[in-house]
């Protein structure tokens, strides 16, 4: 038994120290170690002492031993939340230690165990109402786990949920900013290994191992991930991104029905769209009409709210908000809807800026909502907007002792150089986004090329040529027969 532990630790140290190994050799070593660990009996894993083991050096043994200990403690106490696992407990501390220093490339070979650990971690953090303790650790761990990948992980939604619960939105940003474009499917990887006769067994096994956890992925996970992401962007008031993420959810492909998450996302999208544009943006064409109809029937209060907002009917807007209060509360959109009043004022002032180049604040007060009904209020509101850079405007006090102030909307206050600079920065941003996108498209293209359907198509085409050949010979044969028949007829005649 001692030998086995020794063997495991030796293998693990070799793996840790062997920097000169080729990728294939390293994979082979990891595979061996994982095989040994999976074969190991309970007692061997129980023998591994977590306190003396370094998580960075012996990542895999540490992970297996940790999971074993978690199960052991849970079995012993008969509770899914024993004290040892709770924040501050010794197993929690070990888990934190592991998540802080594990070797990402090794862990990527044991997706199932990794998922298990993180799920336990998420479960504990959420159920002990201490989500913040897990957020920071997990954020770094997830980043380390797939540093270069843009693959969807079923743990992502859970992590985002934790961020939302703990209101630690910034920790989610690095993960959200990666444009996810790959959604693993177990069947696909198997297909691909079937079609790759040259691929070595280890690689194929590793792939199926890595995706085995993803086999349980459902549409709910994907929808949840994007909805949570959008909610985080909403909390940070990044309406642009929030809108994009919500559009992803509402335009998810549907086979026969619309999910409740999509309906929730549509409701939020209506409000976010109002907050950002001052009107409902045109929904993407990719959404089929029957889905759109479902949304429109289910989200009627939101659409009528949007109608009041778009028509600048302040009284109706107030009434709609008031009447729909139970609806907003039930949908957890009350905070979002309450922001509409401010957005209403802003869109009103921006609208005035498009029609006027100068007018007095008293004039604005005449046209503005009830919250801006005096010139002084308008002045302070416009001043705050101008200071925060939302509005390009200048205020001029006309005469001393007079309340009225002239509000000017110059054509452009930014200098030519500043404008160019802004454009350059924006261009670079867009260029980067385009690059990420084209990388995703290339990967997608390769995957599609190696996919089941594509290969079937190629085979069919090859088969087609064979059929063509057969067809030709058949035609020739027919000709021959016809010729014979003609001859026969000739004889008769």
């Amino acid at each position: 038994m001692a030998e086995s532990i020794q063997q495991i630790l030796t293998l693990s140290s070799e793996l840790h120290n062997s920097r000169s190994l080729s990728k294939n050799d390293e994979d082979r070593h990891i595979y061996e170690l994982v095989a040994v660990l999976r074969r190991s009996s309970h007692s061997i894993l129980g023998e591994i002492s977590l306190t003396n083991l370094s998580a960075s050096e012996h990542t895999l043994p540490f992970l297996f031993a940790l999971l074993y200990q978690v199960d052991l403690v849970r079995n012993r106490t008969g509770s899914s939340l024993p004290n040892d696992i709770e924040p501050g407990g010794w197993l929690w501390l070990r888990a934190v230690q592991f998540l802080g220093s594990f070797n990402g490339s090794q862990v990527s070979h044991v997706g199932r165990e990794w998922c298990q650990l993180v799920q336990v971690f998420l479960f504990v953090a959420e159920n002990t109402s201490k989500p913040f303790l897990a957020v920071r650790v997990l954020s770094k761990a997830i980043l380390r786990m797939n540093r270069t990948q843009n693959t969807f992980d079923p743990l992502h939604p859970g992590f985002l949920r934790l961020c939302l619960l703990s209101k630690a939105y910034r920790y989610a940003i690095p993960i959200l900013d990666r444009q996810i474009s790959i959604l693993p499917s177990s069947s696909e990887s198997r297909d691909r290994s079937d079609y790759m006769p040259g691929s070595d067994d280890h690689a194929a096994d590793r792939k199926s191992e890595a995706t085995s956890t993803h086999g349980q992925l459902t549409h709910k996970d994907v929808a949840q991930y994007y909805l949570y992401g959008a909610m985080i962007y909403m909390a940070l008031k990044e309406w642009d991104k929030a809108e994009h993420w919500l559009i992803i959810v509402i335009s998810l492909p549907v086979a026969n029905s619309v999910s409740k998450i999509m309906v929730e996302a549509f409701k939020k999208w209506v409000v976010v769209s109002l907050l950002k544009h001052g009107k409902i943006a045109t929904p993407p064409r990719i959404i089929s009409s029957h889905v759109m109809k479902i949304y429109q029937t289910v989200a009627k209060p939101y659409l009528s709210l949007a109608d009041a907002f778009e028509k600048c009917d302040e009284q109706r807007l107030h009434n709609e908000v008031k009447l729909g209060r139970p609806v907003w509360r039930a949908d957890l959109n009350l905070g979002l809807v309450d922001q509409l009043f401010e957005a209403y004022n802003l869109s009103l002032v921006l609208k005035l800026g498009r029609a006027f180049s100068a007018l007095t604040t008293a004039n604005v007060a005449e046209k503005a909502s009830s919250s801006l009904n005096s010139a002084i209020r308008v002045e302070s509101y416009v001043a705050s907007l101008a200071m925060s850079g939302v509005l390009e405007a200048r205020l001029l006090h006309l005469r001393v002792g007079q309340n009225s102030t002239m509000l000017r909307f110059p054509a452009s206050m930014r200098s030519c150089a500043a404008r160019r600079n802004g454009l350059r920065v924006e261009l670079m941003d867009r260029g980067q986004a385009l690059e990420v996108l084209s990388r995703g498209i290339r990967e997608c293209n390769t995957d599609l090329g190696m996919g089941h359907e594509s290969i079937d198509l190629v085979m069919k085409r090859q088969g087609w040529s064979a059929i063509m050949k057969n067809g030709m010979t058949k035609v020739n044969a027919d000709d021959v027969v016809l010729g014979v028949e003609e001859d026969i007829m000739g004889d008769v005649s």
Partner: protein
Amino acid sequence: MSVHAQDPPKFELESYIANYTGRTRYNRLYVIGTCSSYLAVEALKAAVAEAKSGKDVIRYERAVRALAEVAPNDPEATLDTHWVDHMQKVVKAETDRLEHELKGYKNNLIKESIRMGNEDLGQHYHLIGDLTSASKAYSRMRDYCTTPTHIVSMLFKIINVAIERGDWLSVQSNVHRLRHLQTKQDEQAKVQPKLSTAMGLSQLHSGSYLDAANSFLNTDPGLGDSYTEVLTSNDVAVYGGICALASMDRDELQRRVLDNNSFRNFLELEPHIRRAIAFFCNSKFRSCLEILEAYKADYLLDIHLQRHVHTLFTRIRTKSIQQYLIPFSRVTLDSMSKMFAPGTGTGTGTDSGQQSPPIDLTSPFVQELIALIQDGTLDARIDLEHKVLIANQVDLRTEVQEAVLDSLADYVREAHIRMLRTNIVRAGLEVRVDDKPREMRSKRSDGHGSATLSRGSGLFQ
């Protein structure tokens, strides 16, 4: 009918209605009677008389009812039941007779007789106001027409009934049919003006004013008094001129209306339209609008024009404001309001309004300008500090750059969504109502409960 004209019109009712023949006389009188407060009694009395001279009982009843509303004490406002009963009997007998005759013709299988029988029946139905049956009877003539002249006369009858019914699609389709008919050159020349006007009317009613203007402009002056059962040459001048004013720019108006030799004949009949167009071409917008305003009451009482007067006038006014602004980069609101809103505000007088402009946010002209700016018709902004309207300076370079960046952002967003969609479909993660995901979810709930234990024990066996 929602249109109502308070002001007295410029025309004299008797001479106006004398220009028309046929059923349109009653229709026009009825419209004037119900829409004008000034001519109501006179027109409705004439309408009652007109209806009584015909066979259409329903029209008579309607005219009497309308008259009773306006002048309840008038002796003509009571229904002549004797006449009504008598006429109903006459009509019934006539209908039966004609239908019986037609049946006889059909039995004899003589094409020409059947055609004439249908024509008589159609004419009868038209006279008694049963337009649907008239249209059907005329349509039934089609199979029995033997010469192109028959077809032309049949189609014209259908068109006339369709105009009265307001079935503008039918008018258009029948006009097209007539156009493609192979007829002699001189016959074609005779038919052309009527066709153009019928087409113009249908386009006017469907709101395509430019097409309507083109149709009226192409009408041959040979129309004369040949189509008085629908409209007169004066009407062609008015409809064509106003539609052209509302839909063409100054250059086109000059070239295609004022310099148009054939249309000049029509314009001579209505010199004020010619003057209005000439003023518009010479940028004297105020005079142009004043003329149109002066004749507005007339147009509001025109059976075909009344529903479009408001839209057409708004378009002409908007176009005038747009044209007026072209040479200016900034223009005072005062001078604009003198041009386009005389009589509003105190400073719009002749010379005193220079130093104290009364224009502010509440004045209707400013409100009109704001509406025009907000719907994107005017590319300008109002400066209430200096009371001027400033044309927006367009920096094309920046605009293009911004447009490029926007389209790039749109492209990235759209492509991301589509790529994700492809991958979702490929991974089999479409949203569907199945038991499958539910099973998976129940399996997946491991991390959130004691299910980990069972799984864990399986894992380490």
